[in-house]
């Protein structure tokens, strides 16, 4: 069990709802993942044409089954947009949680640290629980904390790239310097081993989407990630051995029969 904001959760996996081949696959994947938090978005409704088809199934399912919805401000690239999107999402989804994403470059989808901190400050003052998407930069993370964030979400690598944790030392430094902050690796997780590693480093959770949605078998991959975060967290709590640059025999070398001694001649 762990806490995010004021809620207590079992699963350390947060999952996105985009890019699945169908609403049915989305649904079985979320169930298989064990995730209690599902990210969502708001977009222009093209009501007149195709209302209440595919997407409404999506929404009906999420509304009734996802324990917590986490709306995002995906696609925003200014403070104003992000704040407005957050306000609309709060009203619509009836939650003060917001995944704050202010993009600084349309190609790399990197966060803009300046706009993210400013938007976080405004939203925290307005009572939001802000989940800011940011880089692994410690100073930026500290500014987000100063701005009122109790949660910080550094990327592992670029959104949707599946590269895993690119800058491990920087993530470790973040964890070490912000012991009281909930740290969630968001973006770039491609495989369960990446998720396990994030948890092993002491991160509280991971948020991912593409790695499950674009797997050949998304529900099975969702289950894989469920196990991976359990593995990573248990390893963190179990206190892993230190890696060493040298070999160390696992089988004891005492009591060797004589032919071993001989062969070393």
């Amino acid at each position: 069990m762990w806490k995010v904001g004021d809620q207590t959760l079992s699963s350390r996996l947060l999952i996105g709802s985009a890019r699945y081949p169908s609403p049915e696959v989305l649904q079985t994947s979320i169930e298989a993942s064990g995730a209690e938090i599902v990210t969502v978005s708001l977009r222009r409704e093209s009501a007149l044409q195709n209302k209440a088809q595919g997407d409404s199934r999506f929404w009906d399912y999420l509304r009734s089954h996802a324990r917590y919805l986490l709306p995002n401000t995906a696609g925003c690239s200014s403070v104003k947009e992000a704040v407005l999107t957050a306000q609309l999402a709060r009203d619509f989804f009836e939650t003060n949680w917001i995944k704050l994403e202010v993009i600084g470059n349309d190609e790399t989808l990197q966060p803009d640290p300046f706009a993210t901190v400013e938007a976080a400050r405004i939203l925290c003052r307005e009572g939001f629980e802000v989940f800011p998407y940011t880089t692994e930069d410690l100073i930026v993370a500290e500014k987000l904390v100063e701005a009122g964030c109790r949660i910080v979400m550094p990327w592992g690598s670029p959104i949707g790239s599946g590269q895993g944790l690119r800058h491990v030392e920087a993530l470790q430094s973040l964890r070490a310097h912000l012991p009281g902050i909930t740290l969630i690796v968001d973006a770039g997780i491609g495989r369960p081993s990446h998720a396990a590693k994030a948890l092993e480093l002491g991160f509280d959770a991971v948020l991912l989407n593409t790695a499950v949605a674009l797997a050949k078998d998304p529900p099975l991959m969702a289950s894989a990630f469920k196990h991976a975060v359990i593995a990573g967290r248990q390893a963190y709590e179990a206190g892993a051995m230190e890696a060493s640059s040298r070999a160390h025999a696992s089988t004891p070398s005492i009591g060797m029969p004589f032919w071993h001694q001989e062969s070393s001649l």
Partner: protein
Amino acid sequence: MRIQVNGSSVETVPAITIEGLLQQLGYENQMVAVAINASCVPRQTFAEQSLQESDIIEILAPMAGG
């Protein structure tokens, strides 16, 4: 009067409420979020909040997100 809805021009009766607009556009049973001129409109005010000539309306619905 003429307003902008999601980027298209729409003709309505004068001083229509948001609720009225949503009915006119066929959204009545759907859950949506609405912004007028880039300001958030709380859902519980949809019945009272009336629109003016040239208002820019965004009607948003939940969507998949990562």
